[in-house]
């Protein structure tokens, strides 16, 4: 059980990284970006290219991939989403389905459908006797530290900088933010860069923990969306909490359910939260349903 908890925290921190980015763009642009999972996969594959193709060290390759994914996300926004912003959020949602298909199968086209890994070979796990004998691989410690640092950095960015405050203001109430003189388009661009950069980081960590395959991001989209709604749309802190809850429950469920049913747990939690508290754990209960 302790061992499953450790796996849950690792998975939870990866989901949380994906969920923070999705929650920010969801809150600001008012649509769930169905391509978010595939941006995670894109980040993972870009890191693979820089690491295995150009022989950069993995940390540098990861940083490069995060920046590249952010830039690509701004490009997609300029080319597609910005043109549709006036026609309403549901056009954005359909467009994001199109983007998701293009990105996922674009990856398959470039890198092929086979499984890839960053580092070949088997790592020997450390055993922590003072923690009930749990075993953690060195790479998993790296994942936890990286995710922890990124989450703290996002927290500081959102709470201590003007840009972060503008993002939160825009996510919270776009009209009010606009009339208070926040440069909306610039903040939106930065939000895409930040959200997709975090997604790339999550994708790279997922690739380190498991392996790389073109549908890897699409497969974690449902848990990530569940985490976002659990935490309350637009709330980065809620997304972190939601990600952790989803990750830990998915792993703990394997104690009494077949592992194939992990996504079912995310969906069950999602349905439960929709019935009990649709505004999420951190969100303020909204008055009735609003149009998207």
């Amino acid at each position: 059980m302790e061992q499953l908890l450790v796996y849950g925290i690792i998975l939870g921190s990866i989901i949380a990284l994906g969920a923070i980015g999705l929650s920010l763009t969801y809150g600001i642009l008012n649509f769930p970006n169905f391509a978010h999972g595939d941006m995670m996969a894109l980040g993972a594959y870009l890191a693979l290219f820089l690491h295995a193709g150009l022989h950069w060290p993995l940390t540098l390759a990861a940083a490069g991939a995060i920046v590249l994914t952010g830039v690509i996300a701004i490009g997609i926004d300029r080319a597609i989403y910005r043109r549709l912003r006036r026609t309403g959020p549901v056009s954005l949602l359909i467009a994001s389905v199109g983007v998701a298909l293009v990105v996922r199968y674009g990856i398959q086209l470039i890198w092929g459908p086979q499984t890839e890994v960053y580092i070949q070979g088997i790592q020997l796990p450390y055993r922590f006797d003072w923690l009930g004998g749990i075993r953690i691989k060195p790479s998993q410690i790296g994942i936890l530290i990286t995710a922890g640092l990124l989450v703290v950095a996002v927290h500081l960015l959102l709470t201590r900088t003007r840009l972060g405050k503008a993002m939160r203001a825009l996510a919270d109430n776009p009209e009010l933010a606009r009339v208070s003189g926040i440069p909306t388009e610039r903040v939106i661009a930065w939000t895409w860069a930040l959200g997709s950069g975090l997604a790339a980081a999550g994708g790279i960590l997922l690739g380190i923990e498991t392996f790389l395959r073109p549908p890897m991001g699409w497969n974690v989209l449902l848990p990530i969306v569940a985490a976002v709604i659990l935490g309350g749309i637009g709330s980065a802190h809620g997304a972190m909490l939601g990600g952790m809850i989803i990750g830990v429950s998915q792993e703990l469920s394997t104690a009494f359910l077949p592992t194939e049913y992990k996504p079912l747990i995310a969906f069950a939690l999602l349905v439960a939260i929709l019935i009990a508290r649709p505004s999420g754990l951190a969100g303020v209960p909204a008055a009735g349903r609003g149009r998207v």
Partner: protein
Amino acid sequence: MNAWEGIVSYAIFFLINAGIYAVFTLGLNVQWGYTGLFNVGIAGFSMIGAYTSALLTTPASDRHLGGLGLPIPFGIAGAALAAGLLALLIGWITLRLRDDYLAIATLGIAEVLRLVIKNEGWFGGGVQGISDIPRPLQGLFDAHYNAIFLIVLLGLIALLYWAVEQAIRSPWGRVLRAIREDEIATAAAGKDTVRFRMEALVFGACLMGIGGALYAHFIGYLSPDAFEPMNATFLVWAMLIVGGSGNNRGALLGALVVWAIWSLTEFFTDFLPAAIGTQAAAVRIVLIGLLLIIMLIWRPQGLLGEERQVSRWVAERLQRDRAHEG
């Protein structure tokens, strides 16, 4: 078989596939085109329809549940009912919430259903699937079976098209379009908008269930892999967006055009060596994704665009007045 016969039999096969997709597209048009309900779980509704009809009509078997051996029309009715009930459940959870929660819930239910049917072998044979599904009028026509199937299918599509048109042109249909345009105003006019949206969701889902059943009875074999989101959900969305949402003829045209693109590209990728064949399959999906995006940006109303519809009573009256003036 000479070349001419080959072309005809391929054309029939092509039209049957496009026709089954047309049933899904009509269903999505009721939900999205007329009511603005964002369903991304078409795969789930068609899957539940396909499996329900299969379990009702197959001969008894110990490899899956059911096996009641009922006639196919009962299977199709059961499919519509099962898909409608699923929609009722999802609608009950999500329709009083934000619009996009329906999208997320339908996407989730489709994935979960596929997962469950894949892993619970006792229900629908698991990954092995169900293979003894009867085909309508089987045994009566051996030589030109697909042609007969196509005729039956076209009759059914005409019936469904007529039913949707009647519903959409009725007062009920006008309330749906009013909800799509401005839900708050419609509610203020005294309409129970949640109930109307629920009815549209269930109606559309019934059509998708029927489409799934038709697929099962045409192919004669079902497995969870047939209901991957790409084939069973996103292609249907591309069809409706291309054809023109809010227009039933657009829905039919979109099914035909997008299925033609989908089949033509497959035709080309089949010529490529197997080594790059899987890569080429990816190109097809990238193309569909791009088509979707390009249509949204350049021609959001689709090929046909929405028809301007007024009530038949008003239309007749207008015509009479015009004749009077002339």
